């Protein structure tokens, strides 16, 4: 990933900044420029989503994406946040057998990747089960 692209996405990757439409009050993540419901009368403004949600569905990944080879098997889940939007995220710090649909998840700050040995480090959100 190019450094400027990552840098542009820091607000949503670090702090779950999405958008909310001042017209229909719907919350969106990642942030949008135009409300898909209200179109030209929509009034989008930045909105910080609460870092809590529930597992809607998940898959156990055995063939990893680049940079995640040493974490297999790992869980990739669709998490519905309390504010409504769903996001796809890894569930970290767990045995894949621990994860169940409906589990409560908190969003935590983790290292997402790195550009080789001398490149930039990427940080962002992952899910973590609330139960111990």
């Amino acid at each position, binding site marked *: 990933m190019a450094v400027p692209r990552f840098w542009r996405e*820091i607000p949503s990757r*670090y*702090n779950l900044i999405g958008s909310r439409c001042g017209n229909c009050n719907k919350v969106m993540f990642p942030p949008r420029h135009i409300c898909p419901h209200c179109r030209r009368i929509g009034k989008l403004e930045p909105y*910080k989503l609460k870092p809590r949600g529930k597992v809607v569905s998940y898959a156990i990944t055995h063939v990893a994406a680049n940079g995640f*080879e*040493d*974490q297999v098997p790992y869980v990739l889940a669709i998490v519905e946040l309390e504010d409504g939007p769903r996001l796809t995220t890894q569930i*970290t*710090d767990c*045995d894949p057998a621990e994860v169940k649909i409906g589990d409560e998840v908190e969003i*935590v*700050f*983790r*290292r*997402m990747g790195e550009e080789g040995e001398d490149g930039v*480090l990427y*940080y962002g959100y*992952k899910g973590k089960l609330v139960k*111990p």
Partner: protein
Amino acid sequence: MDVGIVGYGVYIPRYRIRVEEIAKVWGDDPERIKHGLLVEEKSVPGPDEDTATIAVEAARNAVKRAGINPQEIGAIYVGSESHPYAVKPTATIVAEAIDATPHLTAADYEFACKAGTAGIQTCMGAVEAGMIKYGMAIGADTAQGAPGDPLEYTAAAGGGAFIIGKNGGKTIATIEGTYSYTTDTPDFWRRDMRPYPKHGGRFTGKPAYFKHVLSAAHGLLRELELTPQDFAYAVFHQPNGKFPLQVAEELGFSNEQVMPGLLTPKVGNTYSGSSMIGLAAALDQAKPGDRILVVSYGSGAGSDAFSIVARDAIEAKRDAAKTVAEYINNKAYIDYSTYAKFKRMLVR
């Protein structure tokens, strides 16, 4: 001095490795190690954790307890000897992740295991001078210990964050005073570009840890005209479980004063996080009016001593974030090969 702690937070990774598991690999006697170092297990960072992620989680917990607008934080200092970048501040990552940017100053500190308490002193000065409203000091590490080195039994991961501000209704504890003692003592070091530190073995004891911790503690007690009996808790830097108990005895503190803040047996030595998490553990239990002595130690070498008195607001704010005990009890054990993979000693 009219400054205090407005909020505090810690973070300790979930993974643990037992002394037995490490001793098995190197042919050591685990009972001898456990008895000698007073360590049972240590925390291990996950493959997606580093000093920046640990610092961010601790900082977020501190903001929750403080109940302040992070935009009012005017300075962030992150002390560590394992910053993810050699050049590119961890403090900027933390500032962004707690929504404190852009109107603040920030920098990374390094002073072996005491860079976090050096940050507290910097924040105290800036708050007292009226330069900033709130300052945040963090001590966090993913500690390095070479495979097979005695350090491997203790080098752990974790961090603590403290928000410093003027005394007032929001203050959970007043800082009565601080005293530092610093000399050039090469007891432990890591050269540039080297992955693991080197140390002077027994030389890290008497002329290093004990001399500096004792001198800073004596200096502070003398300056504030206090005695060990005036304190409910005493927290000393904890490279192992034994040193802090020995130094406490020499100063005249009892085990009851030290044990609540002594975490090495269950967590290991979190380097820059060590005395910070110890102080947090004492604050997790302190009642209003309780006085806490904290003495950090950083190899190289120096100690910062603080006298801290808990205030009424501590009771209401304590449960706003996870306590040290909650982090210690939420754990998953790993074996040495998984540990080696997490620490990138094994690379395919």
